[in-house]
Structure formats: structure tokens, C-alpha cells
């Protein structure tokens, strides 16, 4: 895999997620592009590369999500870790699935992205629930709903991201050559 191409795609996906995707919002739920990209890489890249790509994407997602701590005033901080772990676990789920799906079919990417999003959501919600016990720390759902309500919203978001990934599959599949994945040529051994 060509890392430069992946980083450019990841950069665009993060910019879209943080500043543009709300244009698709329906009842407060909007999709994300990053899970679709990580899933696409997990479907094609070598195992090690797919996992490192998940770490990098998770790191950027964590860096662009601000949390608030309440100690003698409100303190913003970045919770680096939950999305990294969530994306890695999600990728670990996608890796065995990739031999069972038709990778070039946009619907496959959509379905696997939704599963990826659900698994990542479970991991991050578990971490945020545990952190809710810490002093001065509130989970993302504090004040609005329960952990279950948050999981429901995040599940809908994962499904929305899956639906959006069906659209993303078109530019991704067109760029397969640019990504330079091993195994995309008929003569390459599948990793």
C-alpha cells in the first residue's frame, strides 16, 4: 500500500467528518467518511498495513474530538486512545470477513463499514463508560441520554456511515491502482 495516498485520503476524510458531513444530517444523525476509508483499506491491504492504518485514523479522530473536564472550571482536552482501540478492533473483525465478500461490490463495503462502525462504537462506549467514574469526567452522553441511548445513536451513525460508504466505494475503487495494494493484481498472492 502506498502510505502517501492513504494519508491524503485520510486527511480529506477527517476534514469532511469534522466540517462537512453534517450537511447529510437527518434527525441529528450524520455519517462519517473515515470508517469507510479504514474499512476499504482493511479489505485490500496486507494485515499489518491495515492495522497501522486503523491506528493512524483512530489517532486523528481522537485528536479532532474535544472532551471537557470539570476541575475548578471547564478544561478542554483530547482523549487519545478510544478511537485507536475501536478502529483496531473493528479492523480485526473486517480482516477475516474480507475473504467472504466481493470486495469490489459497493454494497460489500457499505455492509462491512456498518459492522466496523458498530464494533468500534462498542469499544469506545465501554471506555467512556469506565471513564465516567473518574473525577471531573463526564461521558459524551451525560446530560442528554443514557449510555444505551448513546449506543443507539452511534449504531444509527454506523449504519449511516455504511450507507455513505456505498457512495465512497466508487472513488475508492477507481483509485485502487493509486493505493497500490498487494493482491489486487490477478497474479498477486492474497495476503
Amino acid at each position, binding site marked *: 500500500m502506498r502510505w502517501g495516498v492513504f494519508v491524503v485520503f485520510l486527511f480529506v476524510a477527517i476534514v469532511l467528518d469534522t466540517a*462537512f458531513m453534517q*450537511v447529510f444530517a437527518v434527525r441529528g444523525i450524520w455519517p462519517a467518511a473515515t470508517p469507510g476509508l479504514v474499512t476499504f483499506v482493511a479489505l485490500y491491504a496486507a494485515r*499489518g498495513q491495515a492495522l497501522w492504518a486503523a*491506528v493512524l485514523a483512530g489517532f486523528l479522530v481522537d485528536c479532532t474530538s474535544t472532551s471537557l*473536564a470539570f*476541575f475548578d472550571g471547564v478544561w478542554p482536552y483530547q482523549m487519545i486512545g478510544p478511537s485507536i*482501540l475501536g478502529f483496531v478492533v473493528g479492523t480485526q473483525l473486517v480482516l477475516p470477513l474480507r475473504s467472504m465478500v466481493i470486495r469490489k461490490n459497493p454494497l460489500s463495503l457499505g455492509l462491512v463499514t456498518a459492522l466496523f462502525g458498530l464494533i468500534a462504537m462498542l469499544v469506545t462506549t465501554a471506555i467512556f463508560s469506565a*471513564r465516567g467514574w473518574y473525577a471531573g469526567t463526564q461521558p459524551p452522553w451525560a446530560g442528554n441520554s443514557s449510555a444505551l441511548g448513546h449506543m443507539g445513536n452511534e449504531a444509527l451513525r454506523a449504519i449511516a456511515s455504511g450507507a455513505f460508504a456505498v457512495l465512497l466505494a466508487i472513488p475508492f475503487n477507481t483509485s485502487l491502482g493509486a493505493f497500490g495494494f498487494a493482491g489486487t493484481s490477478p497474479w498477486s498472492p492474497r495476503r
Partner: protein
Amino acid sequence: MPRTKTFHTPLEQRLWWGTIVAALILSFLPTRWLLGWTSEVAGVVNSVLVPFQHVASGVRTWLRPMPDPDAALPADMQAMRAQLDQARTYYKRLELERAALEERLAILERTVARSPIGERSRAVYATVVATQAPSSRSAGALITNAGSRNGVTPGMVAVWDDTTVAGRVAENVGRLGAVLVPVTALSGVQVRFVPPDGPARADGVAPTTIDKPSGILANDGHQGWTTDVTQPGEIAPGWIAVIDDERWPMSARALKIGVVDHVGPRDDAPLHRRVIVKPLVDPFRVPHVVLLDDVTDAAASGNGGAP
């Protein structure tokens, strides 16, 4: 078919597990330990993203603008509401302008009332719009937004807080602005030393300072002055140096210029006292001044005012 290894070298494997353990530890660190440094790490990432995010959010707002709560109202109601908002904004702006003008007028009246020649003083309100900090090549300067159009003439005294000299207007006054020489750059000014509770100009009458010792301030190059006093009379640290110079406008007489920092005998002339005076105000931090001058026949016909 045997499954291939995810990571081929032990180093790669160690690096991977190190990253995962680090992510786990970071995920469960106490929140206090994450404050500060995580924002700095994220700041590096965000500094690259922000320009692109700005463009993306602009496109998003263009595609899907924020819903207007008045959109459902009839057209004439919307027009009336818009007119009302416009009138409110105009009224608020007038209120703010009136308050600012009243404040300026009060400052001008106070300053003129404290002048020893009262109504025969000419006062112009000016805002300091720029400063040039002192450097090895210059003593610095202040630039005001009042110029000859507002009646500013060279030599006018810039007064801060009704009683303290902040500087003097330099030559070549522009039409729309003037350059002030900061008080810290002035030299050769004759002053008299009075006790801190001495000058009482509220009644518009100059205090009697003729019996107080006087001196000519010489700039010491360190934002202060020195003077040698030969006359008898008490001077102590904390006393105030007030203007008593016939070359200055009458309206500026007895204005405060500095405070006595140190008094001691001169090493080479023990009968002389060396007085070190520090400025009362940092002229580079003054936001606005009142420029004072005496009314002359020429100026009386075209008195200025607030710009």
C-alpha cells in the same frame, strides 16, 4: 493454507504491541493527567486541518444554511421585523455614540476647569491610535487621531487623567493626525517640587508653589529625569514635580509630570542636591489625551474639539 503472520519482524511486532498498550494506558489515564499536553498534540494536527475545515464548513453552510426561525412568517411580518431590528440597531448605536461623546465632554470640562486660566484654555480630545516604542535610535512617539483640522497646534500639552502630562505635540502637525513626543523624552523642563497632597487645582486656582524648590529636569536616558537643586526647602521621595516653566502654555502650569524617586547630595558638590524624578504615567499605555493650549486670538476663531 497456513495463515501468514501479521507482522514479519520482531521489531515490528514489538512496535505494534507497544502502540496498543500505549493506547490502552492513555485511554484509562486519570483525566487530570491528560489536561494540557493532549491539547497541544491535537493542536499540531488541527493546525494543518483548520484551513481546509474552514472551506468545508463554508460549503456546508452554503448547501444547508441554518434554518431561519422567521421563515414561516408572512412576508409583511418579516419586513416589519427586519425594520424593527434595523431601528433597534440604530438606536443602540446612537446610545453608544452619545455615551462616548458625554464622556469626552466631561473629560474636556474637567481638564479645562483645573487649568489655572480656566476658560481661556483650549482643549482638544484625541485618541492615541498608534505608538512607536522607544529604541536605541528613538525616544518613541505617540500618534493621535486629531490634527490641524481639529485645531491641534505644535507645542500643545497632552494631558492624561486631567492632571498628568503625557507628552507634547511635535512640529509638523498633520491635517488628520499629530505626533506626540512622550513625556519620558522631554528634557529641560522647569518644575517645582510639591508634597503629594500639595497641588489642589479642583477650584481652578493654581496652588502657590513659589516657595517650593524648583529645578530643570534633564533626561537621564532611562525613562526618567535628574535635576540639581540649589535652593533651600524640603524635598522628599514621593513628592510631585509640577510644571513651572514659562515656555509652556499657561494652561499647563502646575500639571504633574513626575514623582521624586530619590534625593541625595551630589558627590562633586555636596551643597547641591541631586533629585531623581520618575514619570507618573507610562505614556505608551495612555489610550487618549486632552491636548491643552492657551486661547489666542488666532485660535479663538477656529477652536477644535473632539475628532
